[in-house]
């Protein structure tokens, strides 16, 4: 990755203008902050649109939403929740089956705001390297939290989960939760690129399981036009997901099937050649198929 550009996206800004080169980023930040605000206007201004937090919330007295990963841990301790919590979990699973499993990470999770700042600072100051850890560690973490829940009869990950600590902290009072958040921030900044969200977080790992079969994907209709500027690799929190689709490795179709793609859309923004676009998993862009001949029609494994 020695050729990673220092100012990714500069070309795109020059080509299509600042706004278009930040379109998905702006939308994504609006979504992250907007969701937080929906939760906050209640305690701040007494405007109760949403009650609760990301673990479970109740919107306008009609819409229950439950974090399925949390509910799974609770189920492993042999506790059945009330109906609303089950309905809420079903709604969340269905929703992310549509928009992409780890869309949760990019569009909803408040910790992403923190780790994105780490990533941005890393790029800005050219911080490189750090500890090495396999990206599959998160699945070990996921398994571990489930086993510990089962063995100890507790909702194990809730003891440490930075996601719910930050979200609950902002809404119900932070306490010392900020320490956990600062730890995650520093870890990502100095120890490992995308260390938390990209390697360790079991919440992301759980949602990526939904992402294996989810509908909305990043397609690469213009992959023939790629000029190897590496901008997409520089901004992508999971750069390993791009290569197979961009370079048609083993005849891979022009569509990112890797469940770790967060659907953040940043690659779409920074690409000056408009290689990327959002689209459903069922339609593989035709223009891209032609460049690698018949092999591109290969069905995703």
């Amino acid at each position, binding site marked *: 990755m020695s050729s990673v550009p220092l100012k990714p996206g500069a070309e795109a800004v020059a080509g299509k203008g600042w706004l278009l080169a930040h379109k998905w980023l702006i939308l994504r930040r609006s979504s992250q902050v907007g969701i937080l605000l929906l939760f906050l206007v209640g305690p701040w201004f007494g405007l109760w649109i949403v009650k609760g937090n990301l*673990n479970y919330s109740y919107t306008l007295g009609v819409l229950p939403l439950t974090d399925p990963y949390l509910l799974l841990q609770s189920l492993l301790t042999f*506790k059945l*929740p009330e109906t609303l919590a089950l309905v809420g979990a079903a709604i969340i699973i269905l929703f992310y089956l549509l928009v992409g499993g780890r869309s949760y990470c990019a569009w909803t999770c408040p910790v992403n705001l923190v780790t994105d700042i780490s990533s941005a600072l890393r790029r800005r100051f050219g911080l490189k390297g750090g500890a090495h850890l396999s990206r599959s560690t998160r699945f070990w973490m996921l398994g571990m939290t489930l086993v510990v829940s089962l063995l*100890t*009869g507790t909702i194990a990950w809730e*003891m440490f989960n930075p996601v719910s600590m930050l979200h*609950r902290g902002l809404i119900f009072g932070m306490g*010392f939760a900020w320490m956990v958040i600062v730890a995650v921030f520093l870890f990502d900044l100095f120890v490992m690129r995308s260390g938390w969200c990209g390697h360790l977080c079991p919440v992301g790992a759980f949602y990526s399981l939904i992402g294996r079969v989810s509908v909305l994907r990043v397609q690469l209709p213009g992959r023939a036009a790629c000029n190897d500027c590496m901008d997409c690799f520089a901004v992508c929190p999971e750069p390993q997901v791009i290569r197979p689709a961009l370079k048609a490795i083993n005849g891979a179709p022009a569509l990112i099937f890797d469940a770790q793609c967060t659907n953040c859309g940043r690659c779409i923004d920074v690409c000056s050649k408009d290689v990327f676009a959002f689209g459903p998993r069922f339609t593989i862009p035709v223009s891209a198929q032609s460049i690698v001949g018949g092999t591109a029609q290969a069905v995703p494994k």
Partner: protein
Amino acid sequence: MTTVTQSKAPVGNTARRQFIADTSRMACGVGLLGLGLGLYARHATALPPAAIRPPGALPEDRFSSACIRCGMCVRDCPYDILHLARPEEPMSTGTPYFIARQAPCEMCEDIPCVKACPTTALDHSLKEINKAKMGLAVVVDHETCLNFLGLRCDICYRVCPVIDKAITLDPQTNVRTGRHTLFIPVVHSEHCTGCGKCEKACPTEVAAIKVFPLYMAKGQLSSHYRLGWVEKEKAGGSLVAPEIEHRYNMPEGMKYEHGKGLSVVPPGEAAAPGAVPPAPTFKALQGNKL
């Protein structure tokens, strides 16, 4: 020998070894983390004595695994008494509690906190708030409770929503003055809901009556214990056969009569056959003779 074999091993072999080493390292790391998390999770299921759970809460070990830390109960409490535990507080992070001395449960008739709970952490079968068992009030300090000191404070008794059932004032002789009565506050676990209004209202600097989680406040008799008077009532009469005459083992020359107590048998009065032994002197009481 081994070193030689290793250095000649094909590249694929080395890569595989590297992979196995990496994987085991990661597994060990995550395993250790899991161990720490598990131990921490077990510790965190303890409940500090001042923290009282909302009405209908399951017993502590089951509560902290059923509660999904959503805070719906906190939101729907009209008196805003509930808080979600913060990470630095010595209990399961994110679970709801209140501190009676700060703000007690107002015992809402419709129990909105329970209704709001999306899980079984708060038992939805609790329909009457008077049946709640959030904790148990205990008069912890007999040295500072004003009623124990002989005053008529009575505040805990007056504020109790279940007055005369959950808490009563039991008259006792004030042995210090010899002629006054102490009105001792006594809490009855059968009716106390653990709302904490008494603790909140106690006017002493530190409350003399406090609410504790049930497991902490309640004692238990051994299972073979029977209360004589209860058994008597159940049996509809004395369980001791009345025709058996009770014999007292009296010092010589003494007799005992019910209602009168111990007295010296007057000289000349014959002891009833089989009753008190006859005729000693007063000196027998000195204990200088076996």
